[in-house]
């Protein structure tokens, strides 16, 4: 006995209704912007300047970030590395005990050049991490901050693989990718990031490249400045002053 056209159409429409109902159970976002909000995204292009000659490896930034952003134990949105470089520059001695959340034990090597290097998400203008996200859960905001949508991330971890700097991690409780947000909730209110606030020596400074009065322009024009892994062409916006070439 052949199935008639009517029967086929009935079956198809039943299928449609069933799947449609199921799929509508998915969350949908869409809050209206906060009233009285004066922050204009288009007027800002955020970055950071880190001065290696000023960093004392106290770890204040790591602790402050952890408290401000609820970073889970054992994972780091920012961390500090201590480099001890001999003349064999291919093999520097590098350490970052617990990301330097409790500072560093005393350095014991002799005849080395040593210094601290704070690391953070570079909020790359051509970020490889946002390029690989399959759904658009991580993205660059119009004001230059690479962010993660915690309600949309699948937890596939492709972005964590794609970051050349190791700044992303998988949040063990939320089961999503997580990383430095450049304290987006602070900088959009005119405050600075938690790490910059807590840094006692001013080694870390939040900068706004679109603000003509920002000191970053003078620094970029006159000082020797580097980004990490320039060969990756990521368009990193965290600029290091006085960074040694042995730093990875």
């Amino acid at each position: 006995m052949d199935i008639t056209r009517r029967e086929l159409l009935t079956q198809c429409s039943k299928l449609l209704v069933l799947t449609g109902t199921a799929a509508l159970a998915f969350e949908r976002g869409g809050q209206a912007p906060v009233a009285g909000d004066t922050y204009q995204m288009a007027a800002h292009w955020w970055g950071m300047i880190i001065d290696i000659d000023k960093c004392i490896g106290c770890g204040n930034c790591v602790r402050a970030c952890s408290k401000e952003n609820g970073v889970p134990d054992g994972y780091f949105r920012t961390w500090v590395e201590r480099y001890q470089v001999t003349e064999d520059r291919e093999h520097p001695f590098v350490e970052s005990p617990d990301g330097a959340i409790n500072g560093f034990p005393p350095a014991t090597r002799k005849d080395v050049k040593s210094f601290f290097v704070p690391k953070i998400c570079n909020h790359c203008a051509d970020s490889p991490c946002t390029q690989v996200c399959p759904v658009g859960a991580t993205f660059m905001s119009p004001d230059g901050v690479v962010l993660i949508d915690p309600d949309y991330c699948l937890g596939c971890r492709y972005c964590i693989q794609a970051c050349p700097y190791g700044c992303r991690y998988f949040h063990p409780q939320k089961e999503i990718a997580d990383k430095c947000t450049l304290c987006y909730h602070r900088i959009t209110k005119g405050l600075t990031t938690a790490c910059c606030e807590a840094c006692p020596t001013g080694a870390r400074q939040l900068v706004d490249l679109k603000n003509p009065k920002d000191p970053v322009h003078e620094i970029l024009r006159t000082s020797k400045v580097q980004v990490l892994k320039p060969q990756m062409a990521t368009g990193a916006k965290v600029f290091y002053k006085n960074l040694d070439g042995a730093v990875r």
Partner: protein
Amino acid sequence: MPFSRDSGHLVRPAVVLLAGLAAFLAIRSAVVPRGFGRYGHYRPAALDLIRNRPLTFAGQAQCVECHDEEAKLRAAGKHARVACEACHGPQAAHAGDFVNVKPQLPDVAKLCARCHEQDAAKPKTFPQVVTAEHSGGVVCNTCHQPHNPHL
């Protein structure tokens, strides 16, 4: 291939596939998050979600509003550039409700050593001491006033 009675059965899988496609498109238009793609390939609601996170650090501008005495003392000394919360820890809760939320004073010995304990990797111009030799175990604020520490 001319459409004949003998190829009529091919319409059936085609119909199934097209029905599936139609169903998918219908569901998709209903379920895609509102405004997706407005600024880029993401939900614009995410920006608001991230921005609405409550503050933990108040920022020194807030501290100075009430504590201008300490601020003046600090501005005159070597700790002029050290933010209040760099030593006192996050105080947004205290700034929001200073009557009921009192900040805890930091453990001085540990606090000062974190920055000022001698380490070869610290910049040579940065004031650092081997605390055992420097004070022989006496706590730092016995001699140094934290807001203006230079003696």
